[in-house]
């Protein structure tokens, strides 16, 4: 039963991976990474029950705590880059104007 759940989760991970590879925008990739993180948490928990090693839930807990930081980091960098592009655009407009 755990094996079936694990396989279903793997299938979901595969589809998410395709989305991460295809893009098209950076936000799709972030979405995919985020969702991949969630399915990894579930996967690790299911595998821990499958192997009868319950210590592995610690790893799932770490992912649940930390997978978030990666998402925020990427979002912050997208914003920094967005600001840069806005400024450069303003710069270009200024050059065109006179």
């Amino acid at each position, binding site marked *: 039963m755990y094996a079936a759940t*694990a396989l279903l989760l793997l299938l979901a991970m595969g589809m998410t991976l395709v989305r991460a590879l295809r893009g098209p925008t*950076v936000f799709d990739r972030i979405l995919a990474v985020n969702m991949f993180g969630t399915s990894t948490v579930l996967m690790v928990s299911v595998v821990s029950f499958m192997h009868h090693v319950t*210590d592995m839930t610690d790893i799932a807990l*770490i992912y649940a705590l930390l997978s978030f*930081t990666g998402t925020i980091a990427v979002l912050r960098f997208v914003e920094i880059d967005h600001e840069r592009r806005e400024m450069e655009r303003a710069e270009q407009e200024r050059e065109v104007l006179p």
Partner: protein
Amino acid sequence: MGVAIDIILLLFLLSIAFAACVTRNLFSAAMLFGIFSLISATLFVVLDAVDVAMTEAAVGTGVSTILILITLASTGYRVSPRPAGRQVLALAVSVVLGATMVYGTLDMPSLGSPDAPVHTHPIAQYYTEVSPVEMGIPNMVTPLLASYRGYDTLGETAVVFTAGIGVLALIGRRRRKDPLPIVEEFREGGANRHRVLRVISKQLIPPILLYACYVQAHGDFGPGGGFQAGVIFASGLMLFMLLFGVEHARRIIRPVVLEKLIALGLLIYGGVGLVNILQGGAFLDYRTLAHDPQHGLHYGILTIELGVGITVAAVITTIIYSFASHLRDHVMQRTLRLRQGADAAQTSPESGA
């Protein structure tokens, strides 16, 4: 069943590696690397390496991604296209080398085979059978890390220490003659546009730090130990930095303190060894620490794990601070430059008229 999961995960890894080779866009390569780390951690779980999976989970989710992203933010995301000649040569070299290695694997024992030398060597039996009895610690990785291979771990900690010092020397504290004027918009740094994010994530930071302490202390019984705890602790501080800006984070835990802590951890590690010598034992022979040898071992392992945790946490935090400060300076300089250009353009037509 484990084999099927293993193979599917390996296929995922392959597809990501190919995408990373092909893509011209480093931003997406960096993000794919985040997924790569998630998959490899799952693979480590499937292959029974819980401690390793925990380390990979702690390192891969935040720290390594953010370091590459900061570098990219100041160097640019695009890779310019290039002539094919060099790629063909590189491909040929890789393929030949790979084929040689595949030929080499044919004589290797199959995965998980009990006859493999890794499992038949007496030391493997010693580690799995004698060590829990001798040490009284259920997790076999911890005594192996801290006691049997204590010298090795001391060396690894020293390498982490050296890397931290190196980063500090390269991009660490800049003693500017003329510090940059602070641009008003940057005074409140971090994710200040995301109120919800700030409020919710702020609640998460104490649990992360607390969990790091749990991992640090629980290493004897479950997966965990100094290396993992250090990285998790640093990740908690990193989350704070992302939310409130690096200047604020630097005021909470000052870089000066961190520099002391980097050295302190290694000193604790080496100091335990010295105490052992003073008490008549060998270097890092913890049995001399208490009357009961097993208690001595426990004390020794806990202490050096603490040293490792302090050094790793301080080094990773220092690295992140240095990178983030570098990026902040970079962004502010760019803003100032653009703004000065804009001001100049605004004044020049007037003076012309």
